[in-house]
């Protein structure tokens, strides 16, 4: 009889093994497909059961996103509300149970949702016990007044399309980041299909994810590379209006001819032929691309919570890349960082948009300080270049001047035929020790000095006035 008993036991044991296998199948192998099943509401239940953390502007008071409690028949649920509407939409993003999430909402999701490494004993107990945990609160570096001004500058420009980014060159804090047209994240669930089809691309964060032909603002990078290669600001070049390349002739914007000019004046007048010649004769491909890389080109800024499409010179014709045409492309965020690095003695600070993270009861969990990212240029070269950019404003574009304050800047008029050129301006002020650097792009806005320059100047002066500069 014992033989039969043992056999039966083996049968039972086999049954248990089979069940273990089946459990492993459901819990490991089929886990993801079941979690994503549209009939499975557990994920959204989880998402709405606990309040997400607040997102605040740099003043620590203006709420950009908060969770509002709502009674349902199964208990409490939380809706995400964005009191500032479309003003911060491109930075803050949206949190939709149907369409996913963007911006800070996803970039800082582990903090906002409370699913983060426990930082305090309370956190640990909360996580161990598994109760619904409120998320941590995030304060951004954005200055509410400057953000509104930057957005208004874009929305009231001639095309109403573009982006502006302002940054503190000494700390790397993003002071403003505007992109327009934008959208209201409050009703994203209803309007998402319509917004994603809109040719004006309101869902695109032009500051970090939009790549645009940079045009002449790239000349500051070329100039930096040229200075490193031994070119002096006082070196003289003769512009005949054309520079011949195999199969292509470089001409100046509006077919201007400038005659003999110094290198500094060539930057101020934005003479394409001189920059093409310098790139070919003095800099060379490697040096130009290395300098661009030192300024952050090709980088996705992994540590930055927003998604960044890397700027890139591309592999195009060196002569044209040198003045920002052909394959060169850049986002606005990147160009603000370039202006900031030149102004900050060549040192690029790590860009930061999160000022601090606090637990729901106000304990500071993270407060990242300023950190050097890399040396884009040595201090001497950077100062020389900054002086050349002061010359751009003083000698050629006096409309960028702010009374009593020295401004360093560079215009860009990037040709994107058949449409009107993109209007660019990058600047920093006060030029000797900049407190703010900006990059403004008005899509198809025309000449750089017409649209982007006044917008950038107003942002600089407003910030410096408010901050006693």
């Amino acid at each position, binding site marked *: 009889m014992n033989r039969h*008993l043992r056999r*039966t036991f083996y049968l039972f*044991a086999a049954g*248990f093994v089979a*069940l273990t296998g089946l459990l492993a199948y*459901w819990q490991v192998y089929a886990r993801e497909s079941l*979690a994503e099943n549209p009939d499975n509401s557990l994920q959204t239940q989880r998402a709405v059961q606990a309040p997400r953390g607040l997102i605040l502007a740099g003043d620590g008071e203006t709420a950009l996103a908060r969770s509002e409690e709502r009674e349902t028949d199964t208990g409490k649920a939380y809706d995400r509300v964005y009191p500032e509407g479309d003003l911060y939409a491109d930075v803050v993003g949206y949190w939709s149970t149907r369409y996913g999430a963007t911006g800070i909402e996803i970039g800082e999701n582990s903090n906002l949702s409370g699913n983060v490494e426990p930082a305090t004993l309370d956190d640990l107990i909360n996580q161990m016990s598994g109760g619904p945990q409120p998320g941590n609160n995030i304060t951004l570096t954005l200055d509410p007044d400057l953000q509104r001004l930057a957005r208004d500058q874009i929305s009231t420009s001639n095309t109403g399309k573009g982006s502006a980014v302002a940054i503190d060159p000494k700390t790397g804090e993003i002071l403003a980041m505007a992109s327009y047209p934008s959208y209201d994240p409050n009703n994203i669930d209803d309007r998402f299909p319509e917004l994603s089809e809109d040719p004006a691309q309101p869902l695109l964060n032009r500051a970090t994810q939009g790549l645009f032909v940079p045009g002449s603002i790239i000349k500051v990078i070329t100039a930096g590379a040229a200075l490193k290669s031994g070119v002096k600001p006082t070196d003289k070049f003769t512009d005949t209006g054309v520079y011949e390349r195999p199969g292509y002739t470089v001409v100046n914007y509006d077919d201007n001819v400038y005659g003999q000019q110094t290198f500094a004046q060539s930057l101020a007048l934005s003479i394409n032929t001189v920059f093409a010649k310098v790139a070919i004769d003095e800099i060379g491909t490697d040096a130009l691309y290395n300098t661009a890389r030192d300024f952050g080109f090709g980088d996705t800024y992994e540590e930055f919570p927003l998604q960044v499409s890397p700027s890139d010179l591309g592999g195009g014709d060196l002569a044209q890349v040198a003045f920002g045409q052909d394959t060169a492309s850049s986002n606005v965020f990147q160009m603000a960082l370039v202006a900031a690095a030149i102004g900050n003695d060549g040192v690029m600070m790590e860009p930061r948009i999160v000022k601090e993270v606090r637990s729901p009861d106000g304990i500071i969990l993270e407060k990242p300080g300023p950190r050097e990212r890399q040396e884009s240029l040595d201090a001497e070269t950077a100062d020389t270049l900054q002086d050349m950019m002061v010359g751009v404003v003083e000698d050629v574009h006096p409309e960028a001047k702010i009374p009593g304050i020295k401004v360093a800047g560079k215009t860009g008029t990037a040709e994107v035929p058949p449409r009107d050129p993109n209007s660019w301006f990058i600047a920093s002020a006060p030029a000797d020790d900049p407190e703010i650097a900006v990059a403004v792009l008005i899509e198809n806005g025309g000449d750089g000095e017409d649209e982007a320059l006044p917008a950038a100047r107003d942002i600089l002066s407003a910030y410096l006035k408010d901050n006693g500069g």
Partner: protein
Amino acid sequence: MLLALLVTTLGFATLIFAQESNSPPLIYGAYYAGTLLALYFGVRLILPHSDALLVPIVTLLTGVGLVMIYRLTFDVEGVENLATTQALWILIGCGTMFFMIVFFRNYHRLFDYKYLLALGAVMLIASVISPLGYEVNGARLWLALGPVSFQPSEFARIALIIFFAGYLAEKRDVMAATSNTVLGVQIPTLKYFGPVALVWGLSLLLLVFEKDLGSSLLFFAVPLLMLYAATGRIAYVLLGGILFAVGSYTAYLLFGHVQVRVRTWLDPWQDPNGEGYQILQSLFSISDGGLTGTGLGAGFSQSIPEVHTDFIFSAIASELGLLGAVAVLLTFLAFVYRGIKIALLAEDDASKLLAFGLTSMFALQTLVIVGGVTKAVPLTGITLPFVSYGGSSVVGNFVLAALLLVISEKVGQHEITDETLGEPMGRSLQEPAR
């Protein structure tokens, strides 16, 4: 034993933090620990030679069950007190167990009343058809006696197993020897097989009328396995298998709720918010647990209907993950292992068959319900032994464990006698001392 209590206490402690509720669960937890500790020492004292692992295993399983029931029901209106009730049932179960080991130490007496027990079992099952019985979820298996309601089939099962064990032990030699061959298959003589088949068929018939699929399956399969163990005839298993197939198919044709069960098993996606809802929610919850689980209290298995009874395993898998669920399964397997070991070492046929029958029922019940919630087999409404909420189930399983204990006590006594006599009997079956 200490480990089992520690796990349960930890579970409760976690829940208390989770739900910021204070004294009730802790006090009941303390009562629980005290009761089972007392039971453990009681059993060690009264049955010093009995299997030392059974009570700790039962403690762990009921403890895990109690924690899960508390977690799943404390904030649900209408059933907030289920955990308290369950704790009370565990207390009654402990009392019953204690009573059994004191008064039924000589369990062989039970075999003398086997026909009476069989009759009692059939009566118990039949009782729910009486006006006292009532239906829950389409199955009529509840009996109301004043304020207390219970499922008589939980106890009828055990009574029937005692009957079968006694009867088969008496008749196994004749049944194995005398048989007629029909079409090359050996068919036992009706004379000896008759009474077994009669009781068997009768209880099945009643269960089919009561629409209790899970119990029907157990009533059918357990005697079959006992028959196989007693006679060693694979023919019985084959015959039983054929009968089972015919029976299931007939049930499928006759009863709508059986059809629903099969349909939702084969393709629950057909009607995800209707018929397939329960099994799909179960699968979602299980998969949500992943390898390590969502953590106690963080899962969403409350969305499964009947989660605290039949589907409690889904909640365990969801919140404790694959690791926790497998640990619970291993605990069940350990119980089955001890049970089979007791059967192997038992002296006489009746004891062997009784221990084997009880263990088989326990194992099958676990496999069928865990298989049911993981979509391995169609769902049948039975409880997960010791873990699920349910008074009759808990008390019934304590009775089952008590019977195994008294059988193991006998084994232990004999082993000691054998050792003093120096006979190397049953050596090969013994595991190394631990």
